[in-house]
């Protein structure tokens, strides 16, 4: 063993002398670089993870632990009461079901639309194609605030060319139903829909044309080619777009506040935790007010409870998030 090691050393010194010190220098530089990189990566990972870890540790603390300056990370009085209280305050399981349902529906609707449109842009030649694609870019760029006020009123007094008013005598109030939001998603105007159209189009453009032509020669129609040949090929980008749509829908509060006021969602319930906590304390003890620190600890607990399902999905589908996007070869 030691013999082979020494002979290795000898060979190394020999080689080093032959290269006039270049080999040693190169190896030292490489090692230094690797160490520096490891430190940097560790630091940045810590930066990203630290808030989550911090929240997790806070969520297990009792109220008095929060004021104890000697406790920073590990709670002295380990408790699960925070979780119980939060799930009571926002009726967690019911809200979770709502959020899950709406996120799934919205993500599916968005994906269905984006796939069709993306395919249309990627694979067909038609007049004004450039113009319509510019419109997709415009959809990505326009902040939703700009059109929200009028969309809001549009759905408040919903009508299609005055037809509904003719029949029933009045417009329909779609404010507190799911329909407006689903409509938006299905027509490519939902949360970040433009981005999905863009990504999917990019992916379809990368699939070789011969595949499609072969299908045409064998007698497939346009729709059949799309469903039987192109869709199975596009599974990676579709899963990753679906995951993005799902995750962003899960945490979105803007569209939720605008269109889904009737439904309680995790994203809209979270900020309300503090006031609920105060109510709860008043109702149980008769007086008093929740301290700020305790309220914030509760919010941290709520956030953990919100992102845990997402984290589970992320762990399972981590590859889906990342790998497919690297195949699109994004270019403007």
């Amino acid at each position, binding site marked *: 063993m030691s013999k082979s090691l020494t002979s290795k050393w000898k060979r190394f010194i020999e080689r080093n002398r032959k290269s006039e010190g270049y080999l040693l220098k190169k190896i030292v530089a490489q090692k230094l670089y690797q160490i520096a990189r490891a430190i940097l990566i560790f630091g940045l990972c810590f*930066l990203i993870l630290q808030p989550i870890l911090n929240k997790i540790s806070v969520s297990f603390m009792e109220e008095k632990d929060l004021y104890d300056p000697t406790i920073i990370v590990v709670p002295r009085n380990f408790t699960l009461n925070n979780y119980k209280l939060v799930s009571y305050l926002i009726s967690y399981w019911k809200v979770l079901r709502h959020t899950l349902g709406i996120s799934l529906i919205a993500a599916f609707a968005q994906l269905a639309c984006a796939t069709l449109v993306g395919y249309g842009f990627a694979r067909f030649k038609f007049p004004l194609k450039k113009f319509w694609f510019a419109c997709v870019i415009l959809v990505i*760029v326009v902040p939703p605030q700009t059109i929200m006020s009028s969309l809001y009123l549009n759905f408040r007094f919903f009508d299609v060319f005055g037809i509904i008013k003719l029949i029933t005598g009045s417009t329909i109030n779609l404010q507190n139903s799911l329909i407006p939001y689903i409509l938006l998603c299905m027509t490519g105007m939902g949360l970040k829909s433009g981005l999905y159209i863009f990504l999917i189009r990019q992916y379809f453009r990368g699939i070789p044309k011969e595949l499609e032509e072969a299908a045409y020669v064998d007698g497939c129609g346009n729709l059949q080619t799309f469903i039987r040949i192109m869709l199975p090929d596009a599974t990676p980008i579709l899963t990753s777009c679906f995951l993005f749509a799902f995750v962003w829908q899960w945490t979105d509060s803007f569209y939720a506040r605008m269109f889904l006021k009737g439904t309680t969602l995790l994203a809209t319930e979270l900020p309300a935790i503090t006031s609920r906590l105060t109510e709860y304390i008043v109702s149980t003890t008769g007086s008093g007010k929740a301290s700020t620190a305790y309220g914030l600890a509760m919010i941290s607990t709520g956030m953990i409870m919100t992102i845990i399902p997402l984290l589970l999905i992320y762990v399972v589908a981590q590859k889906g998030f990342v790998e497919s*996007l690297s195949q699109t070869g994004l270019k403007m």
Partner: protein
Amino acid sequence: MAKKKQKNLARRKAIAGYLFITPFIIGFLFFMVKPLCESFMMSLSKVTVAAGQGGFKLDFWGIKNYKDAFLVDAEYTRFLTNELTKMLTQVPATIIISFFMALILNQSFKGRTFVRAIFFLPVILSSGVLVGLEYNNSLLAGMQDYIKENTNSAQITATLESILSTTGFGNKYLEMVYSIVNSIYDVVIASGIQIIIFLSGLQTIPKSMFEAATIEGCTAWESFWKITLPMVSSVILVNVIYTIVDFFTKSNSQVMTKISDTMIQRMDYGFSSAMAWVYFLAVLLIIGVFSLITSRWVYYYE
């Protein structure tokens, strides 16, 4: 005969293409163009909600809403300038840092998949309502202050800052750097998608290029500037636009909150659409300027 058939095929294809994008066209016309026009009209008039007459009534009163936004409202201009100045440092910082991280993540080292998984976590963590809540959470900040007070050790960053500023060299630029360093968390958390996009760009560069360069005697430094950067320049353009849009539409933006509050709570549709239009035009202008600057450097290999 053959020519006619070909023409027919092209026409059929065109029709099929239009059929495929119809959902988008419908959505675009009804939920984008129409509201855009309407909100522009609203921004120029006094809006009163009247259930009887088709929803709402518009009384044209010119640019009063815009004047109100800039001259009367106490918060709006301040929020807007805050947002814009913050953007000027944040967007370049996000681009540079995410590019840098993508470069690192593209190399091979032990535990790369794990590190990648952590770096893409911000895609989840920086979305929607979570950012806003994070922003307001003073509990953790309070803890940090407490630790700082009770441990007498000097902070590395503070010491560095004082050393650098005593040299009196380019203080203004240094301050910019400090502000970026101080908001490093915001930058890192906002760069999840950008890293993915950059990685995808980096992976499309053929390896043979680097090999050829190395044989010709290129150092890593040179091949970075001569190969990597030009090859991903088109991706940089995509990322610049994405970052700007993402920055302006994130949910803890003060302007966004103010606009939707004015709309939902005060029901002042005219004023809120005026503010939204100013915001929109500012965003468009900035995207235009940034993409003009970037697109001058974009190099297309093919």
